[in-house]
């Protein structure tokens, strides 16, 4: 029974992707013909264009960069929210959630005006900063939970044994937090990789990401090109996610004993 459910789930995910791959090469498929009437490599050729490949690579670069920076910023933020009390902590939590709660158009227009004044409109830096703002709530909240469940007791033990605060954190807490860091970075990557509207508003079309190539074809309804580009989009996102997941697995194999076994 469980196996049947598993197969059903797999089919529900894989069939649409397979159909996408098929549409990427089929030019005409009139109803009710069971098979496509003519195939074409137009979609694949458009994908193999050197500009498209360059855009895909730089897009992966922007998204990985934004995701890594987000995790780096989120780590101390989550620690502060989890373990310290400071004035305005509740307000801070609300502010950190704002990019998710505010209507995104309003948020984006504000960012556009601000970045124009700052002179970072139409730059990769501006786009990455904007992406980081959109990503941040997710790693912060995930890492907050993780920090609280890891706790500080083990770190305090290390401190009583004479380790410096930095060493106590890096040798004791960090290894326990690392798997969570890798997953939130992967999540951040996916959020950034899928941004279209924000990238267009801040990057002004000058900073080209893969989403900006895909969406016009989907909007204009060119089935073959949108299928081919969407398939490549899924493939690229999946590959990066898969690599991160593999890193995580490799790491968790050599993970130090969990908290439960220590106590």
């Amino acid at each position, binding site marked *: 029974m469980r196996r049947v459910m598993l197969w059903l789930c797999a089919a529900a995910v894989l069939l649409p992707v397979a159909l996408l791959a098929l549409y990427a090469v089929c030019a005409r498929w009139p109803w009710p013909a069971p098979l496509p009437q003519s195939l074409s490599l*137009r979609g694949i050729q458009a994908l193999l264009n050197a500009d498209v490949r360059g855009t895909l690579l730089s897009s992966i670069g922007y998204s990985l960069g934004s995701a890594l920076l987000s995790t780096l910023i989120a780590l101390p933020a989550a620690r502060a929210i989890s373990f310290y009390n400071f004035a305005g902590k509740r307000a801070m939590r609300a502010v950190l959630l704002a990019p998710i709660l505010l209507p995104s158009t309003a948020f984006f227009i504000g960012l556009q005006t601000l970045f124009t004044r700052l002179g970072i409109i139409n730059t990769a830096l501006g786009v990455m900063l904007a992406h980081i703002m959109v990503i941040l709530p997710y790693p912060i909240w995930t890492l907050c939970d993780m920090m609280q469940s890891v706790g500080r007791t083990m770190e305090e033990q290390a401190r009583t044994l004479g380790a410096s605060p930095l060493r106590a954190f890096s040798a004791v807490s960090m290894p326990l937090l690392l798997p969570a860091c890798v997953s939130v970075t992967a999540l951040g990557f996916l959020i950034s990789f899928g941004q279209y509207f924000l990238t267009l508003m801040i990057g002004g079309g000058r900073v080209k990401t893969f989403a900006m190539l895909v969406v016009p074809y989907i909007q*204009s309804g060119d089935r073959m*090109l949108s299928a081919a580009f969407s398939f490549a989009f899924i493939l690229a996102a999946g590959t990066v996610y898969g690599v991160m997941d593999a890193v995580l697995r490799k790491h968790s194999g050599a993970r130090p004993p969990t908290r439960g076994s220590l106590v």
Partner: protein
Amino acid sequence: MKRVLKTVCAALLLCALLLQGCAKPKDSARVDYADWEAVLRAAKGTTVTFYGWGGSDLINAWIDQQLAPYCKTVYDVTVERVPMDIDMILNRLIGDKAADNAAGGIDLIWINGENFATAKDSGLLFGPFCQYVPNYERYVDAQSEEATLDFGMAIEGYEAPYSNAQLVFSYDSSSISAPPTSAQALLELCRQNPGKFTYEAPPGFTGSAFVRNILNETCDYAALAALPEGVDDATLRAAVQPGMEFLRQLNPYLWEGGATFPATNAQADAMFMDGQLLFSISYDPYHVSSMIANGQYPATAAAFVFDAGTVGNTNYVAIADNSQNIPGALCVADAILSVPMQAAKMDPSSWGALPVLSSDKLSQEEKDLFSAVPIGEGALPQDVLLARRIAELPAYLVPRIEAIWLEEVPGK
């Protein structure tokens, strides 16, 4: 924590400001645009951003693989195509203006109709500039309607012609023997084949043009075109009433009984390819031959237009008022109006757009270049199209007619 975040942000912003300060754009303010040699010198080695709709791979490829290399060879200007919908382009220009950003990233814009009217009225465009462009002077008939009026809006040199488009219908000769030659005949055919026709929902570009095409046959089109800006609602409604009545009559025989319409023209076109619809509509005059050539239409597909004509428009390129590279943008506008580029653009395998150059101003060799372009299978030749071309209604009427359609046609 707060302090850390603040410091990081401040540091990043500082870096950005420094970087921005280093990358000073070429000073184009001092060029005398009337001196073409000076424009060429100022444009040499620069990059021009060309903003426009990016939803057609054919058009994208034409810009990337034909226009861009031509500009590089002839003017040493690099063309960077930026795919962006016109609403968004206008938003950015308005945003730049609001933020007093005199250094915009947008140089050349693909534009026409009500968007041009909006941009020109809001002072977002540089101009008049057409008189600076040598190929405009050489090949464009400046007195012609397409060079003076864009959807009824005075151009006054603020945009240079890019392409001519005309609405054409496609049908498959293996499923119907003779295409309808009038709106009435179309209604008759739909009545015999219920559920086999639909059109893109206005304000979609093509669907909206189809509706105006129906108005041409059912209403007093000349009187409609003469309605002034700010005409009251009742007068406009009365003027388009026969057309809306006709479309309501058509409704029950449409796909989904006319209760709903495809959101994009490409969706309707895909339904035609899949054999769900008998006709498809396109504003690209050589759409049929392009589609036969890439295997999406069957070889038996062909184009037709109504005997009373179909609407045609011209689309243009304009230059942003805060462009940092006006000399470069002028060069690209010049390239677009060159004979080799207009002829290349006419080829359905690379785009299939009608040229905008005046044939009276072309030499015999230049004319031969155009007549040598193979228009492919199924398409109507240029002279047939031009003989059945009707002008677009004024831009200010278009959104109002679209609103009336939305109120009075779907599901009625």
